[in-house]
């Protein structure tokens, strides 16, 4: 039993779902994560290795250790919650794609070689785009296409890297890679695209806000976390990741402050949170790596919770623009409460999940003497609270009364949000259970007087800044707008450049044509005026006369050849 890869359970369910309907289908959807989780929990231990052979290349479907197992538990849990949340959606495409998507994420974290990883990497890309396309608008179709190009490109880099590595070393094994040689850089870029490195991040902020209300909840949990897993396995301790991670943690918060689409705010804050994980991986000590993994775990749940609350608003109101929301707490008090719990968790308030995981990365920064970088991360921590912790609940549920009185969320959505909220508090208050799952040996306990006090000071005074800026009228109002990001380069600059280039070449062609054709005409004209033009041969050009003249010339050559030179 231990050799049955868990992703197969999801793939089998993905075949059963289109064949079933109604209640049976919903039961299949709900039971699959439970069965998969039980299978992993009871049957799969660390140290399993199962290989298969294709074209004389040995590939590893299953390689288990504590690192892959914690992500596998996380993915089962996240898919269970997201499935409950999406239960009222009757869309075969999304339901099937969801199962393939989660299955691929599980396949990827158990993949023991780069080719198997590549297969699941691409399956993740193809299945996830369905959540964007399912929105059905023209805009969503375009966005999905851009999203898919990035995702598939990431796979192409991964495959290229894998092949170069195979050529060089003869091994396809996916273990620690480290940044040495072209193969490792190709793989690094592949992982970088999927984990939304700066300049490669726009597929996320472009795609996630365009997905369906329930689809984004799925999307936020898996793609970037598979990438974080892959970075942790392949590139732990690469110092460049510290700097990349800090950039990721810092720049999105500026965008998050001025962004109006609240799901886009969350997309930016997702990059910010992944930044903390990437930094942890870059530091590479046991504590830092544990922190990265633990933070991935709690992030999936609290970010999922926040996306769920915004999904409810989108589902009930039909849009998610901060500029025209507000006062929703009056008619959706439960959703409001869940949103606040998610906000407290992402802001790392003591007793909530972000506090027990993010602080490990912060502590590791201090231990490794990155004191200036630590200041940047502290800035990012304060910024998270500002844009995700306060802005999201405030502009959606409080602020000025928009007059909207949407109904409270449907019961299945409330259950899903309730589960996630309970987990946020459970992890925050009982971190020992999460810590026991962590892959590396590191002694850490988040609750001491100094840590709690300093974190509370940081957060309360960040909130004070919000109150003060709001009262003084300095706080930027929510405006309907588009904010330029890196995507401007490929959505405006390059297309405009290509357009201009084409116009330039067309003009160039026209002017050379006129420049070249005018003399040609004049030559032809002067020829027709000349005396040669009157000559018999140039007057009429029947093919027959040409053949006749050529044969006469040939005969003349022949005679000359025979009689003169003979």
């Amino acid at each position, binding site marked *: 039993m231990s050799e049955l890869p868990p992703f197969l359970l999801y793939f089998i369910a993905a075949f059963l779902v289109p064949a079933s309907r109604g209640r049976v289908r919903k039961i299949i959807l709900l039971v699959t994560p439970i069965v998969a989780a039980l299978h992993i929990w009871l049957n799969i231990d660390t140290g399993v290795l199962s290989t298969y052979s294709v074209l004389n290349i040995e590939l590893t479907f299953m390689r288990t250790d504590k690192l892959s197992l914690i992500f596998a538990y996380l993915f089962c849990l996240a898919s269970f919650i997201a499935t409950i949340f999406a239960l009222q959606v009757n869309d075969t495409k999304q339901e099937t794609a969801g199962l393939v998507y989660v299955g691929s994420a599980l396949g990827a974290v158990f993949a023991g070689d780069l080719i198997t990883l590549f297969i699941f990497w691409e399956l993740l890309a193809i299945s996830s785009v369905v959540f964007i396309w399912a929105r059905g608008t023209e805009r969503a179709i375009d966005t999905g296409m851009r999203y898919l190009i990035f995702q598939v490109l990431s796979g192409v880099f991964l495959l290229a890297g894998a092949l170069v590595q195979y050529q060089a070393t003869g091994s396809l094994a996916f273990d620690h890679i480290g940044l040495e040689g072209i193969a490792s850089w190709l793989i690094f870029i592949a992982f970088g695209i999927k984990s939304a490195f700066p300049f490669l991040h726009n597929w996320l902020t472009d795609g996630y806000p365009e997905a369906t209300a329930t689809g984004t909840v799925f999307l936020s949990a898996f793609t970037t976390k598979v990438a974080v897993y892959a970075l942790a396995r392949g590139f732990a301790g690469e110092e460049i990741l510290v700097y990349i991670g800090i950039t990721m943690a810092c720049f999105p918060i500026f*965008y998050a402050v*001025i962004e109006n689409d609240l799901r886009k705010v969350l997309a930016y804050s997702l990059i910010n949170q992944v930044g903390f994980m990437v930094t942890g991986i870059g530091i590479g000590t046991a504590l830092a790596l544990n922190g990265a993994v633990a933070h991935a775990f709690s992030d999936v749940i609290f970010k999922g919770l926040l996306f769920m609350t915004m999904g409810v608003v989108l589902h009930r109101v039909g849009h998610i623009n901060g500029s025209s929301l507000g006062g929703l707490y009056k008619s959706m008090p439960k959703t409001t409460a869940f949103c606040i719990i998610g906000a407290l968790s992402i802001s790392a308030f003591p007793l909530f999940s972000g506090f027990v995981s993010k602080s490990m990365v912060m502590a590791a920064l*201090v231990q490794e003497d990155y004191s200036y970088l630590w200041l940047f991360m*502290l800035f990012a921590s304060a910024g998270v609270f500002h844009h995700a912790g306060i802005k999201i609940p405030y502009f959606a549920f409080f602020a000025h009364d928009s007059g909207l009185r949407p109904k409270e969320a449907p019961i299945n959505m409330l259950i899903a949000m309730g589960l996630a909220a309970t987990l946020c508090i459970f992890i925050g208050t009982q971190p020992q259970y999460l810590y026991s799952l962590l892959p590396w040996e590191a002694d850490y306990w988040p609750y001491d007087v100094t840590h709690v006090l300093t974190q509370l000071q940081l957060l*309360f*005074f960040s909130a004070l800044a919000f109150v003060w800026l709001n009262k003084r009228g300095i706080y930027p109002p929510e405006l309907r707008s*588009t904010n330029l990001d890196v995507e401007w380069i490929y959505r405006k600059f390059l297309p405009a450049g290509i357009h201009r280039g084409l116009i330039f070449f067309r003009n160039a062609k026209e002017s050379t044509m006129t420049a070249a054709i005018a003399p040609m005409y004049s030559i032809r004209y002067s020829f027709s005026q000349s005396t040669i033009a009157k000559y018999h041969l140039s007057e009429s050009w029947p093919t027959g006369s040409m053949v006749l003249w050529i044969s006469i010339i040939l005969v003349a050559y022949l005679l000359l050849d025979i009689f003169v030179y003979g």
Partner: protein
Amino acid sequence: MTETTQKKHLFDNPRNVERLLKGFYVICIILIIADFIIHRHTTMGWEKIPAFYAFYGFIACVVLVVVAKIMRKVVMRKENYYDE
């Protein structure tokens, strides 16, 4: 609809907002006072500054918002900018 619009909600009463804010300010003050009473262990130089975290959090957020506002002048376009 009329029933729900007539119903008074928690923050419809400005006094409740005031109460909330007052409570919030009191907690802020307590956190500053606690900084002088409780001995916190510090590892880095700047942590020794009294109420460092409080100041840092406040300043960080003001800087964040001010910079973001300036950024708007550069990056903000119409909502349907990319669709044109």
